[in-house]
C-alpha cells in the first residue's frame, strides 16, 4: 500500500543516477588509467619527427581506423577556417586516427567556461596567453612535452612570447601554450576627417577633432589591456621607460617577489598629460557603453579614432566604410610644460609613443582530455601552429601570424596583391606596434585579474578623471591632481600588480622609484 509511487519514483531516480554515474566518461576521472599501453607509446607514434605538415606521405604510413574525436575550440571568427584545415589534415594523414570537431567560442569568456567545468571543455582550446597561468593553476591545462613541438615553438617565436608561455606544473617548468596569433593594439581612424599626418600624433588628432567638433580618440574598453597605451608609453627616441612589470619575478604565495614599478617621473608626467587631454572637449573619450563602434560611426560622429586590435577590423570597417577606414600606429604625444612641471626625470617637449601589450593567442591542451589522445593532440597543434597554417589563416581570416619574420610574409602578400591595402596595414601596423609593446606579464589569476580588469584600471580611471579612489573604503586616494596624489595612485597600481589586493594603507614614504 503505502507510498508506493514514492518508491517507484525514487527508484527511478536512484537507478538512473546510479546507472548514469557508471556511464561517466573515463576522461572525467583522474585515475592514472589502464589505457596507456596501446596509444601512449611516444616512440612509434611520432612519424612526423622530421618537421611538420606534409612530411608524411600517404604511401609510407598504414591507415589507422578512426578511434574517436578530438574536439577543438577556437575563436568564433576562425572556426570555419580551422575546421576546413583540420578536415584536410585528417584526410592527408590516414594514420592520424581521429576525427576533429572544431567549435567557435566567445573569445572573451572562453577561459571562464573552461575553468567552470574543464571536463566538459574541448581537448584543445585556444586562449590569449595571459590566461595560461590561471588555466594551469586550476589544473585545466596539460603541459606540452612533444620534443618536435617544443623545438618548433623555440625556433619560430620571438623571445618576448617565449617568456610568457611557460608555467610551473608540479614544481617544474613546462611549455603550456603554443602561440599562433599575435595581438597588439593600433589605431583605426576616420580618413574622411583626419589626414594621415594628423593621425601620427595625439595633438594632430586633437586638431582634427576641434575642426569636426568631436572627441579625438577612444578605446574599445576601459580595462588594463586597452588602457595600456598610456601606462606602457615609451620615449619615442630610445624606447625607454621606467615602468617595470614583474621583472625577473616568479609567483610566491601572497604576491610576486619580482620588481614592479610604475611611479617613475615619466609615468607621472604621462598621467598628467592624459588628465589634460581627457579634460579637453576634443580630447580623449572613455569607452562608450553603447559600444566603441557607435562612437566611431560616421553618422554619430562621437570620435575620430579608436585604439583597437585586428579583431575589431570588421566592426571598424562597418562603422566607417572601407574607404574611410584608416589604420596607423598608436600616435605619439609631446609632454607639455604643465605635465612635466616639478618633475626631474622628464622635460617638456619629450615625445612619447603610446604603448601596447603585445600578446599572443595560444593553443593549449585540456588536462581532462583522454590520455590516449595526448600524442596526437600535440601532433595536431604542431601542424596548426606551423608557419604555413598561420600564413594561410592570415590570408583567409586575417589572423596576424605570431612567428618571427611574419612581417616579410605580410609584405610579400601585399606586393603580390593577395590582400587589400587596409588588410595589409592591419597586420603591418600590428607587427610594428609589437616593437613598442611588451607581452602582458602573467603570474597568477589573482594578480592578473586585478591589474587587468578590476582595481588597477579603476584606479587609473580615477586618476585620469581627477576623482577620489575608492569612493568609500580603506585606502582612500583623497586627490589625484598633485604630483604626490598621482604618485600615490600609481603606487596603488604597482601594489595591485605585486599583490593582487589593495594595500591596507599607504606607507609614510613611497618606495623610491628605481
Amino acid at each position, binding site marked *: 500500500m503505502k507510498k508506493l509511487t514514492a518508491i517507484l519514483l525514487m527508484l527511478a531516480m536512484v537507478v538512473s543516477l546510479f546507472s548514469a554515474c557508471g556511464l561517466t566518461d573515463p576522461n572525467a576521472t583522474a585515475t592514472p588509467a589502464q589505457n596507456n599501453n596501446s596509444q601512449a607509446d611516444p616512440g612509434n607514434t611520432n612519424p612526423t619527427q622530421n618537421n611538420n605538415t606534409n612530411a608524411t606521405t600517404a604511401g609510407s604510413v598504414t591507415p589507422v581506423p578512426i578511434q574517436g574525436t578530438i574536439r577543438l575550440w577556437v575563436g568564433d571568427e576562425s572556426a570555419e577556417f580551422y575546421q576546413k584545415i583540420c578536415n584536410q589534415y585528417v584526410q592527408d594523414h590516414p594514420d592520424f586516427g581521429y576525427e576533429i570537431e572544431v567549435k567557435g567560442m*566567445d573569445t*572573451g569568456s572562453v577561459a571562464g567556461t573552461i575553468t567552470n567545468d574543464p571536463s566538459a571543455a574541448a581537448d584543445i582550446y585556444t586562449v590569449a596567453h595571459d590566461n595560461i597561468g590561471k588555466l594551469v593553476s586550476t589544473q585545466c591545462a596539460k603541459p606540452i612535452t612533444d620534443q618536435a613541438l617544443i623545438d618548433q615553438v623555440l625556433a619560430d617565436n620571438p623571445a618576448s612570447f617565449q617568456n610568457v608561455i611557460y608555467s610551473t606544473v608540479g614544481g617544474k617548468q613546462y611549455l603550456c601554450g603554443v602561440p599562433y596569433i599575435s595581438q597588439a593594439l593600433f589605431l583605426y581612424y576616420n580618413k574622411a576627417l583626419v589626414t594621415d599626418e594628423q593621425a601620427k600624433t595625439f595633438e594632430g588628432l586633437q586638431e582634427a577633432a576641434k575642426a569636426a567638433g568631436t572627441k579625438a580618440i577612444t578605446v574599445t574598453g576601459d580595462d588594463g589591456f586597452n588602457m595600456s597605451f598610456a601606462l606602457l608609453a615609451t620615449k619615442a627616441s630610445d624606447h625607454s621607460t621606467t615602468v617595470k612589470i614583474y621583472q625577473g619575478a616568479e609567483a610566491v604565495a601572497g604576491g610576486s617577489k619580482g620588481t614592479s614599478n610604475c611611479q617613475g617621473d615619466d609615468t607621472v608626467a604621462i598621467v598628467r598629460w592624459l588628465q589634460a587631454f581627457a579634460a579637453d572637449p576634443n580630447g580623449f573619450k572613455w569607452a562608450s557603453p553603447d559600444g566603441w563602434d557607435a562612437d566611431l560611426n560616421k553618422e554619430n560622429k562621437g570620435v575620430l579614432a579608436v585604439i583597437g586590435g585586428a579583431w575589431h577590423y570588421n566592426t571598424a570597417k562597418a562603422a566607417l566604410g572601407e574607404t574611410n577606414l584608416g589604420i596607423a600606429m598608436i600616435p605619439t604625444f609631446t609632454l607639455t610644460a604643465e605635465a612635466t612641471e616639478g618633475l626631474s626625470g622628464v622635460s617638456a617637449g619629450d615625445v612619447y609613443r603610446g604603448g601596447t601589450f603585445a600578446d599572443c593567442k595560444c593553443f593549449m591542451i585540456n588536462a581532462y582530455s583522454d590520455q590516449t589522445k595526448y600524442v596526437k593532440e600535440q601532433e595536431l597543434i604542431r601542424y596548426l601552429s606551423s608557419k604555413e597554417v598561420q600564413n594561410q589563416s592570415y590570408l583567409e581570416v586575417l589572423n596576424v601570424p605570431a612567428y618571427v619574420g611574419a612581417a616579410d610574409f605580410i609584405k610579400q602578400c601585399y606586393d603580390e596583391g593577395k590582400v587589400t591595402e587596409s588588410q595589409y596595414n592591419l597586420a603591418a601596423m600590428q607587427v610594428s606596434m609589437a616593437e613598442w609593446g611588451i607581452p602582458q606579464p602573467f603570474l597568477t589569476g589573482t594578480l592578473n585579474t586585478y591589474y587587468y580588469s578590476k582595481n588597477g584600471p579603476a584606479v587609473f580611471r580615477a586618476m585620469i578623471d581627477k576623482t577620489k579612489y575608492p569612493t568609500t573604503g580603506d585606502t582612500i586616494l583623497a586627490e589625484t591632481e598633485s604630483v604626490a596624489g598621482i604618485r600615490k595612485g600609481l603606487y596603488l597600481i604597482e601594489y595591485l600588480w605585486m599583490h593582487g589586493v589593495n594595500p591596507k594603507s599607504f606607507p609614510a614614504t613611497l618606495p623610491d622609484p628605481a
Partner: protein
Amino acid sequence: MSNSGKKIKYKSQSRSRRVSLGVTYLILIILSVIWLIPLLWIVLSAFRCQYHPDGTFIGTVTSDYFPKYVGLKNFKDLFSMTFAGVPNAFGKWVLNTLIIAIVCCIISTFLVLSVGYCMSKLKFKLRKPFMNISMIIGLFPSFMSMIAIYFLLKSIGLTGNPEHPEYSIIGLILAYSAGAGLGFQIAKGFFDVIPNALVESAKLDGCTSFKIFRQIILPLAKPIIIYQALMSFTGPWMDFIFAKVIIGADNPRYWTVSVGLYSMLFSAFADKNLFTQFAAGCVIVAIPIVTLFMFLQKYYVEGVTAGAVKG
C-alpha cells in the same frame, strides 16, 4: 419651473461629464503613446535598413527614432545567419525553445495543479510544514542553485556531455519544471474558492479522490490551467541565465532563443553589428507570446486575481 431647472442641471452634468471624458481620453492617449514608444522602437529597428540604397553602410545604433530606409533584410539575415558556427541558428533556437516550452508547460502545469489541489482540498499531516518550507525555499534566488544544478544534472549525463549535447535540453526542461510545484500558491488560491461542499458530497457518493479531482475539480479549473500553462510556456522564452549555463556556451546549436538573442548583443560574437537582427528576432519572439496573451487575457486576469486578492 422645477422641470426646466432639472434640465439645466442635467445638461451641465452631461457637459462636465463630457469634459471629464475628454480629459480621460487625452490622458489615456498620451499614456498609450508613452507605453508604445519603446516597443515601437524595437519594431522599427527590426525593419531598419543598415545599408543606404547605394550600398554603403549606415550603422546600427543610430540616433534617429524613425529609420530612413526600411526593408525586410534584417529578417532574411536573421534566418540565414550563421552564429557561432551554427548555420541558420535562429530557426534552430526557436525550435529548441518551442520544444522546451511545450514540455515544460505540460509538466509544470500538472505539478502545480496537483500540489495546489492537495494543499487546498486534501487534509494530511505534513500540509502546513510543506507550505512553510516551500515558501522559505522560494525566498532564495534561483541562480544561487545554478552551479549545483549543473553538476547534479551532469551526474546523470544531462548536461556538459560532449557526446550528447542534445541531452542538455532534457536537463534544462528538468531544471525549469522541477521547482514548478513549489509555486502552487496561485492554484491553491483558486481551488480554495471552490466550495468544499462539492467535494464532500462527491465523497459521500463514494467517489475516490482521484475521481473528484478528475471529474469535478479539473473541469472547474479551466482558468487556472490556462493561466499556469501560459506562465510556464512563456518562461523558457524569457530566461537567459539558466539556459546558458545548463545548455553550455559551447553548444549554440541547442541554445534557447533568449540566450541566442542575448548573446547577439552582449558577447564577443556581438562584434558584428547585430542590433537590427536582434530587434528582428525580438519581434519574432514577441509576436506569438503577445498573441497568446491577447487571446488568453481573461484567464490571465483570473489567475492573477486568484493568487493575489484572496481575502
